[in-house]
């Protein structure tokens, strides 16, 4: 008797559990006249993509669409593929995605487009299988600006190293390729000591790698960090070794996170764009295209700025320098 009671309670619990997910569902009131535009980011729960989500939310409110953001718990290409597959079966109207790995996503992009779903990418200009890519910056100009910053700090000659978030992260590696090309032409005396190191998304690892670099290359004069945690990790290591300011640190950073390092001089300068603009632009362009608009004739995105279209890439110039003076004024 007691035993069957126990089973009964357990069954009830299981049933209750099965019903709960729908309670937590977001924006799933699927009205036919509302576009469902989903943004898939590299990692969920980091400041960068939280800020991007603010843009998605703004688009939802202003454009009358059903827009929301999802992403894997770590920067895993396989999980992104799965998420896109799920969205295809769900039958959404458009998928805006920041790829972790450009090639891993190609097959599933094809499948999505065969199902009439728009694919918009971000931070992956050479992605094949997409409808359109949106870049908030001109990648070549961005890379050049970063290397100019490096030279402002360390001078036109000397040893330096480069961090990326991962060896398959499309954008970081595009910047490094462009930057190295630019450096070869303009600053031939710069000496890259070792190939790009994949640690830029992990502050502890960036710190450890910087310590190792300092021991291996005592004359190191600069570090370029892509991935928002590379420069802070490098700055921390320099502070610990009393070399703050002696080695130039530049790269992509979150202003709020970088502020203390910029102020104490262990980080030289940051470079970035506002991810919120990216979130908004993606959803805005998705709606524009779903309404039948042709992106090749697009000249501006309201609230974000003027755009130029090259092939199937829409470029907005929203590059900004982050210095110790302005780091606190961005609001993220």
């Amino acid at each position, binding site marked *: 008797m007691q035993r069957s009671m126990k089973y009964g309670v357990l069954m009830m619990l299981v049933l209750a559990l099965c019903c709960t997910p729908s309670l937590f569902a977001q924006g799933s009131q699927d009205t036919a006249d509302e576009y469902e535009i989903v943004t898939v980011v590299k990692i969920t729960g980091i400041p960068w993509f939280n800020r991007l989500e603010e843009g998605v939310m703004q688009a939802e409110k202003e454009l009358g669409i059903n827009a929301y953001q999802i992403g894997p718990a770590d920067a895993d290409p396989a999980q992104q593929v799965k998420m896109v597959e799920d969205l295809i079966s769900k039958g959404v109207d458009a998928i805006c995605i920041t790829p972790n790995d450009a090639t891993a996503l190609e097959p599933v992009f094809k499948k999505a487009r065969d199902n009439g779903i728009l694919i918009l990418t971000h931070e992956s200009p050479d992605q094949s299988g997409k409808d359109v890519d949106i870049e908030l910056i001109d990648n070549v100009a961005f890379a050049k600006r970063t290397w100019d910053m490096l030279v402002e700090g360390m001078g036109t000659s000397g040893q330096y190293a480069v961090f990326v978030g991962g060896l398959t992260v499309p954008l970081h590696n595009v910047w490094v390729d462009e930057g190295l090309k630019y450096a070869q032409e303009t600053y031939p005396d710069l000496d890259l000591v070792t190939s790009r190191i*994949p640690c830029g998304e*992990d*502050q*502890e690892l960036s*710190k*450890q790698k910087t*310590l*190792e670099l300092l*021991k*291996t290359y005592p004359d190191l004069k600069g570090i370029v960090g892509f991935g928002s945690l590379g420069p802070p990790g490098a700055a921390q290591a320099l502070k610990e070794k009393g070399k703050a300011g002696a080695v130039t640190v530049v790269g992509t950073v979150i202003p709020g996170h970088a502020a203390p390092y910029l102020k104490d001089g262990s980080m030289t300068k940051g470079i970035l764009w506002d991810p919120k603009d990216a979130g908004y632009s993606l959803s805005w362009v998705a709606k524009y295209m779903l309404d039948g608009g042709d992106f090749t004739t697009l000249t501006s995105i309201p609230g974000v700025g003027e755009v130029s279209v090259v092939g199937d890439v829409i470029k907005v110039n929203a590059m900004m320098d982050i210095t110790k003076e302005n780091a606190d004024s961005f609001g993220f």
Partner: protein
Amino acid sequence: MRKLFQRHETYVLVIILLFSVIITSVNHNFLTLENALDLLKSYSFTGIMAIGVLFVLISGGIDISFAAVATIAEYVTVLIVLRIGGSMITAFAFAVLIGAALGAVNGLLIYRFKIPPIITTIATMNVYYGLLIVITRGKWIYALPDCFRSFAEIRVGSFGVQDGSAFGVSVVTIIWFLLLIAAAVLLRYTRLGRSIYAVGGDKISAERVGFRVGRVQVFVYAFMGTMAAIAGIVQALLVQTVAPNSIVGKELDVIAAVVLGGASLAGGVGTVFGTFLGVMLLAIVQNGMTLMKVSAVWYDVFVGLVVILSVGFSSYKQKKQQSSSKIDIRESAPSAGVSADTLQES
């Protein structure tokens, strides 16, 4: 001497020495006190978690959720200290409380419902980590309490001044070493410690002999949670930023280090010293890559090869010993029988 060569630790030590020689021959900066102390500081976080994993592995279980536990303990503790103030002692106390509680939940689930540990802890990892992300929305904490900043700078000893910076034994290294000693004493000299080996060696026999398997299991997972929580605080001290996603994903590195150190996934085997060596071997290989100017694309390849090499070498040796000892028994069967007889007589 022969006994020494039967121990797994000896092989790990030999491989560490071998690597040190190779790395030093390329870059003499490797074998400096400064580099050693930097490594001991950076890897104290991995090392502390490894102690907990060692206990779980010895008891014949496995834990995947410890990184999530560490993150929660770190995040909640920092929030509490920011809100109500307090010192590092309050921080550690809260962290240990949270870690032990979350770990004990794992232990209870595993013991009460007899769910395989790997399933249980994968499930609790998802629940713990998921809840943290839901509640915090993944927000990072940049401004740590002041005590975290000042405590992290404590160091013992000051060895020379290089380029205007002194270096010494960091406080986090000291925490790690104290925990290593405590864990070694617990495992070797206490009844509880021996019962962990007994449960891991053969659960059913241990139960028949009279060990309370349930208590041991709950203790082991609670201990894992405690170590994870302390490691979480150490991580906050090292990085000076708390990010909900900075620890999750490092579970396999830690487990690999413990197995490198001689613990068996089948349970019943493993030592604290071996675990320390395992962590250091991983640290030295990763450190050595950059110091030897190896291109970053090769990092993972080398780390994988070292794991295969060192674990493979020692288990091959063990296998050889086992097969040769079998022959020994057969050849000396009469004398073995005699000794058995004498045993019975006495």
